[in-house]
Structure formats: C-alpha cells, structure tokens
C-alpha cells in the first residue's frame, strides 16, 4: 500500500471533467513529477489532495487514512503540505513571522496563546541555513526579491515538516542557479518526505525525478522514468499534437 493513493478520483466544474477517474500511488519517500499539457488537470489534482477543491467522486487515501472528506486544516494536520503556484508568503509579516506561522506542529488556539517568542534554535536554525535567509529575519516578506520569496516558501514547507509535500511549479521564475539549489534541496528531502511536484522545466525534472506521471485531459496518460516518458509516442502526441511536429522537435 502506497503512502498516498488516489482511487478513481474525479471532479467536475460545470460540464468539464477536470480530473476524470485518476488512479495514482506514491511510495513513502518517493519524489514524483506530474507532467502534462496545459489544462491536463495537474494543479486540480493537487487541489483535490490538499482539500482546496472537494472531489465529486473517488477517494484520497493518505497514510492509510481516507482524507477525501476532511477540511483543509485537518488534512494539513495529517501531514499534507502544499506550495502554490503563485508565491503565497504573508507579505505583511517578517521572514521569521512567516516561519513561525509555518511551525504548525501545535496548531490549537490554546497552544498558540502560550507562545510568545520564536525559538531560533533547532529546526528553525537548520531551515534558515538551508535556504540562506539568516540575514533577513526581520525583513517584511513583501520586500524580498522574487527568488528570496520562493526560498521563503520552501523554508516554510520545511518548517511545517509535512510528510507529503505538494508543489506546483516550484522553480517558476527562478534563475538557473536558484533552480539547481532547489534541486539539491529536493534531493535531500527524498526518502524522508513524499513529494509530488508539478513542473514544466524538463531539465529540472531530469535532475530530480525517478518516476514521472503524465496526465492529459484529466486522465493518467503514461507513467515511468524520464527516458521512457520521453520516448512514449502517446506523450508526444498529447504535447505536440502530431507525430511530424514531434519528430521535428526532437
């Protein structure tokens, strides 16, 4: 039994089946990349897993527990974390305050009433070292550069320390150098965290992914290693329309 399992997952928006009978299984500690053309339902799949969107059919099993009908915050407490496509740090809060919000191992109101200062030692220190934001603790997140904002978001995910990390285009807008550093971080998380990453940048996917899942029109199209996927004629068809252009592109 996988760490995360999707069984016949479905969702409809009006008449559109954004995700249509998707089955997927992730092992504990696996890093899976989710590919597919625009509108294939990748982001929606992440929404369904983290609870942002309610499924109209099927089920999401995480760690052996059926979370299909849980509220977002309950799923988060079970260890499902989500990084969004648009950097969504809290712009009015400082870096350290953002990280303190992310330190959500005790999310209850009463527990929060007893916390008055942010401990900088331990996990916080490790995370700050990984992402290199030590010098910017009291900078408002709104004043960070684009790259730093991305780092802060990843730092928040690390702080939250969720068992399953869902990421939507984590390297969008990053420089090559930043992308490489992100790949390093992902590789170091492999094994301890299960990750599902939606990504378009194939060079990045080659560096991080063992297994790749390709979706098209809400359905699972192909699954395998990067090399297998790149050879798969169905995938080429979905991405590029027809065989000729696929040949021309390769």
């Amino acid at each position, binding site marked *: 039994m996988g760490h995360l399992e999707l069984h016949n997952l479905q969702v409809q928006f009006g008449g559109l089946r954004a995700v249509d009978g998707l089955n997927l299984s992730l092992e504990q500690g696996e890093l899976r990349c989710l590919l597919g053309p625009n509108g294939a339902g990748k982001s929606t799949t992440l929404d369904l897993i983290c609870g942002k969107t309610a499924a109209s059919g099927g089920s999401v099993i995480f760690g052996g527990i059926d979370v299909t009908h849980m509220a977002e915050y309950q799923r988060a407490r079970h260890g499902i974390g989500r990084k969004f496509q648009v950097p969504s740090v809290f712009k009015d*809060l400082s870096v350290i305050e953002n990280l303190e919000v992310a330190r959500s191992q005790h999310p209850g109101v009463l527990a929060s009433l007893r*916390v*008055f200062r942010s401990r900088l030692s331990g996990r916080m220190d490790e995370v700050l070292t990984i992402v290199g934001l030590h010098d910017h603790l009291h900078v408002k997140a709104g004043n960070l550069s684009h790259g730093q904002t991305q780092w802060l978001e990843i730092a928040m995910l690390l702080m939250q320390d969720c068992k399953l990390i869902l990421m939507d285009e984590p390297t969008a807008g*990053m420089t090559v150098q930043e992308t490489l550093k992100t790949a390093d971080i992902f590789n170091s998380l492999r094994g301890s965290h299960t990750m599902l990453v939606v990504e378009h940048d194939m060079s990045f996917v080659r560096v991080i992914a063992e297994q790749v899942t390709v979706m098209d029109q809400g359905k699972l199209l192909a699954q395998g290693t990067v090399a297998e996927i790149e050879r798969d004629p169905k995938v080429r068809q979905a991405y590029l329309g027809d065989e000729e252009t696929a040949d021309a592109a390769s």
Partner: protein
Amino acid sequence: MNTTFKTDIIGYGLFAALILFVVPWAFAFDGFELNTFARYLTLGMVAMALALSWGYAGVLNLGQAATFGLGSYVMAMHLKLRASASSYNGMPDFMGWTNVEVLPWFWEPFHSLTFTLVAGLALPALVAWLMAVFMFRGRVTGVFVAIITLAFLVALQLVFISEQRYTGGQNGLTGLAPLELFGWRADAYSTSFYYMVAGCLITALALGLAVVRSKVGLILRAIREDANRVRFFGYDVARYETLAFCVSAALAGWAGMLYVLVLEFASPTYMSVPFSLGIVIWCAVGGRESLVAAALGAVVVNMLEGRLSSIFVEGWFLFLGILFIVVVLVMPRGLYGLFSDAVQRLQTVSPRDRGGKVATKATPLSATPAVKEEN
C-alpha cells in the same frame, strides 16, 4: 526580538503613566473633571476591544456597541435591584408602572454581585460566540460580517426598547444604587473611582496585548492577509477568529459595565447605530493596528467632542463624519500609521538598518529579480 513589540510596550507604559499620573494631576484631582475623563477611558476600552477583532483579525464588527450595551445592562440590573430593595416585591419601579406582578426570573440572579461581574464578561462573550460560530464556520468574511453584526445590533436595540416591562424601554435603567465592591463604595465623582476605571483599562490593555503578542496574534494577522494559506498549515481559522471576536466582546462588556458606573444609568442609546459607528471612527483615527493607539484615538476624539459640541451643538456629527472621511483618505492607518511610518523612515536613515533596501541588496541570490518564465 521584534521592533513593533518594543513600540507596543513603550506605548503601553507611556499610556499607563499618562492616565494614572498626568491626567489626575492636570485636572487637579477634581472629581467632576475626572468623571468626564473616566468616561473617555471606558470608551477607549471599547475602541481597544474593536481593534482586537478589526485590526488584528480583520473582522469588522459594526455591532461592537451590542456587546458594550449588554455589559452595561448587566451592571445596571444589579444596581437597579439594589436600589429597589425596599420597594414592592423588591421590584424595580418601572415594572410596577407596567403591571408586572413578580420579579422576572432572569432578573433574580443579578442580586448577586459575583454573578453580575462574571455575567458582564461572559454574556457578551457568549452572544459573540453564537454569532461567531454561524459566521466563521460558514466562512463569512469582509463586508458580510459588517452587515450581520450591524443587523444584530439593530435587532438587539429594538428588543431592549420594545420589552419595556423588563428593560425599562426607551428610558433605560435609571435611579441606580452605587456599586459596593469589597466594602468600597463607588462614587462616580471621586478620584478613587477614576483610578478604578484607569486600572481596569490598563489591565484590559495588558490582557489584549498578551493575546495579540502571543502566537495567536501572529496567526490572526496571517489570517487577515490570506486565510486559505493559514488553513493549509493546519490551523483552524474559524477558531482563531472566534477567539478574537469573543475576547473583543468580553472586553467591550467590561467597558459597558464601567460606563454604567460612570454615567449612573443604562440606556438603549448605548446600543444605537451612531454610537457603534462612532467606535469604528475612534478606532480608525487612533489606528486599528495598535490596541493602545485605538484607545488613545477614542480618548482624543471624545475630548474633541467634549470641547466642540459645546460650541457647535448640532454640528458635531458633521464634524465627526468629515474627520472619518479625512482619516480614511489621508491616513488609512490612523495616527499610529503616521507615527510608525515616521519611525521606519528614521530607521532607514540609520546605518544599522536590518529591514530596508540595504539588507535586500546584500544577498547573492537576488542579484536580478528573475523574469518569470513562460510555461
């Protein structure tokens, strides 16, 4: 650890010193003048309560006067019963005029002082909790919260006016006995009474500050910015909003109890819409991001009202309206916003700056803000 925290503590200390030492001295310890000022302080308390829910949690409660009014009636009922001890059946005079034969059951517990003091905080909090469960569980936000709370206020005031047999109706509760607390008799025109009110405000401010300086305050600010994102960290947003709303209501109830002691009567006008909107204006003028600033805003605006309304009797509300428009247009963060901007500008000039442009440049990762790539 945090610069705003330091500002809060300094501001709090200065404010406490102001109302404990400077004000009594400035009014030459005159009981009548101090009674007027004690009234401003109770209004400061209710503005502070609003800042807790509006400024921190982003929950604009236009019906703050409802919980304030509930607190005031709770206190007034106790004092009315004490004043009516020798009358027929121990019943308040107005009940006799409307042919009520026995004291209604819900008046009975207000014979007890302890019950009254607890109820003055708990009843507003309970009412707020019921509203909060409906609103925040249902994820009602923004302007709809404002509409619901305002509608509730209007309904509550109508009930208090129409149920004249039990509430004194339009006249409210008058002819109250003075409060007796541990053998101390509250004389609204004594300096000791002023110190009691000032002490209550300082205590309430400390409680409010403790809440907003704890992680709860941080989560509330995060919720104000992006409630959905907070949910994905595992926080139950509705519970945090409910807590802020209920603490705010309890503090408003406390202020209401004090208000009755200051003015020595309770009236349905404490639950009127203009009064409730006035609270919002005081809070906006002072600055809703800071509890102390909101309290100060209420004191300043009401002092102005005291001076100006004696000159232009009818024109005061016009002035208040213009003040609100000016604040919203020119300084949306109130006096506190002006002050904190000035402090920040001073810090940016100093070389030890950690927050401004200097620090952002020093990072190797942000040499050029990367252009977002096309998919």
